[in-house]
């Protein structure tokens, strides 16, 4: 017996929540991305060419889109959970006849939707001004979904583990931000020294960005199928950890 409508309602509530503050949740990331494009793109466009025939500004777009997708997916589930915990209103979801699966799917799907919305808006804003091909659209969609779902799950983990906004900010600033900045958004893995190339290969965000970029340019540092497999395994591992925490009721049901 499943509570489909309950799960849908929790998903809808999470979506309504971020749509009520679109300036913060959609517009701000789009403006930040445009600033990145202006600063990095304009400053380095003349000096850097990573893939043959692809100028640096165009190279940046998919990476920045993916960075926004994953950061916003993480922000959605983590901030919603920590706010509900701090306010105490998490109790209304805890009292409802929802399974851990339903809770997980609702929160992750809402996080995905926010991440994808930000990604799509960024694309729509820059698309009229730049020439960005879309060689493998299904790979773009697949990596966007895998990345946003993974970070949505990570957001649940961070929201569950954190007891204060402070702790969540630490997770965001010391884990998510470095991993996303060091994921090849602004550079190709091949342009790094060998040691850093090796270290970067342990960063799962790198495979999200690299595979996503392949979907646009049909160029990548790593075989996109390997990236797809790694991203899928990463999502499965995070999902298992999240479901385990929720099943245990860790810091939610004492």
């Amino acid at each position, binding site marked *: 017996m499943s*509570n489909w*409508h*309950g799960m849908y309602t929790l998903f809808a*509530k999470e979506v*309504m929540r971020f749509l009520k503050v679109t300036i913060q949740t959609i517009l701000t990331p789009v403006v930040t991305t445009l600033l990145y494009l202006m600063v990095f793109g304009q400053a380095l466009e003349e000096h850097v060419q990573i893939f043959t025939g692809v100028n640096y500004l165009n190279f940046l777009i998919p990476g920045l889109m993916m960075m926004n997708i994953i950061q916003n997916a993480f922000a959605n589930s983590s901030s919603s959970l920590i706010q509900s915990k701090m*306010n105490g*209103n998490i109790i209304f979801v805890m009292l409802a*006849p*929802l399974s851990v699966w339903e809770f997980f799917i609702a929160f992750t799907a809402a996080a995905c939707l926010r991440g994808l919305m930000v990604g799509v808006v960024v694309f729509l804003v820059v698309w009229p001004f730049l020439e960005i091909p879309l060689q493998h659209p299904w790979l773009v969609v697949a990596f966007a979904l895998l990345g946003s779902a993974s970070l949505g799950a990570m957001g649940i983990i961070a929201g569950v583990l954190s007891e204060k906004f402070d702790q969540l900010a630490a997770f965001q600033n010391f884990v998510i931000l470095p991993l996303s900045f060091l994921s090849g958004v602004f550079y190709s893995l091949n342009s790094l020294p060998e040691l850093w190339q090796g270290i970067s290969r342990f960063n799962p965000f790198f495979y999200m960005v690299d595979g996503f970029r392949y979907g646009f340019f049909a160029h990548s540092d790593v075989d996109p199928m390997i990236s797809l497999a790694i991203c899928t395994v990463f999502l499965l591992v995070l999902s298992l950890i999240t479901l385990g925490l929720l099943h245990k009721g860790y810091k939610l049901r*004492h």
Partner: protein
Amino acid sequence: MSAAVSIRNIHKQYGSLQALKGIEFDIQPGEFFGLLGPNGAGKSTLINIMAGLVRASSGSLSVMGHDVVGGYRQARQSLGVVPQELVYDPFFSVRELLRLQSGYFGLRNNDDWIDELLETLNLTDKADANMQDLSGGMKRRVLIAQAMVHKPPVLVLDEPTAGVDVELRQHLWEFACRLHQQGHTIVLTTHYLEEAEALCDRIAIVNNGELVALDSKQALLARCAERQLTLTLADTNIRLPAGLQEKVIEHDSNRLVLRLDKNVMNIGEILAAVQASGGQLVDLHIEEPGLEEVFMALTRREPRA
């Protein structure tokens, strides 16, 4: 008929603290049940185990025959909880919150019942207001509406009148009584003992994680047999008979306070004895034992050696 709430040998351990030590009792369908105890006695832990918010270390608890762990969906469908704290989601209006809460319980198109709840709780004109803009009393009423949105047969009111004004307290009492008359099982925890005395059919008193009393209100009150008689006399000098003199606990000019065993001593005989001793009665006041005396006697902490 199976119990509305069945609690079996519930233990809860927080580290080295034993919050509940084998609590066991039933709450029958349709009862207005009081759960009393001093702060830190374990009431909230027990309520939270009932609601699935806390997991028991051992033992079992079922609501309307559904185990809160194994049959959590049905158990939660059967239970409405009004939390003690005024908690709310600041993103939504009252109506949105009630619609969301209905949805969590799998209910679509619940607007008729939501409208009825809003009207009953005098919230109709606040339906589209954000929770942040409501007074404390209104927020409390919204919490009740949220707990009732799925029409649960068992309603838990955890300190519902803490910090609310007299008018709202009366209103909440009337609402709880109406729900009780409609057949709902009500579980009330409160610090106001007169509230439990006025509303509850049966009362459990928890102290230090243990059940120290479980009885009907009348039986609990009968445990305290002493009542207090205050006499105001016209004159100050009166010599009572020896048998009565030893019952005097206070003698202040023309005011006489006696502590009497109501099962043994008859007020009429006492008044006759006072008058026979030359006392001219101006006024009298009888104070019957209340739940507070029983509560104090059962939960008094022995001083540590």
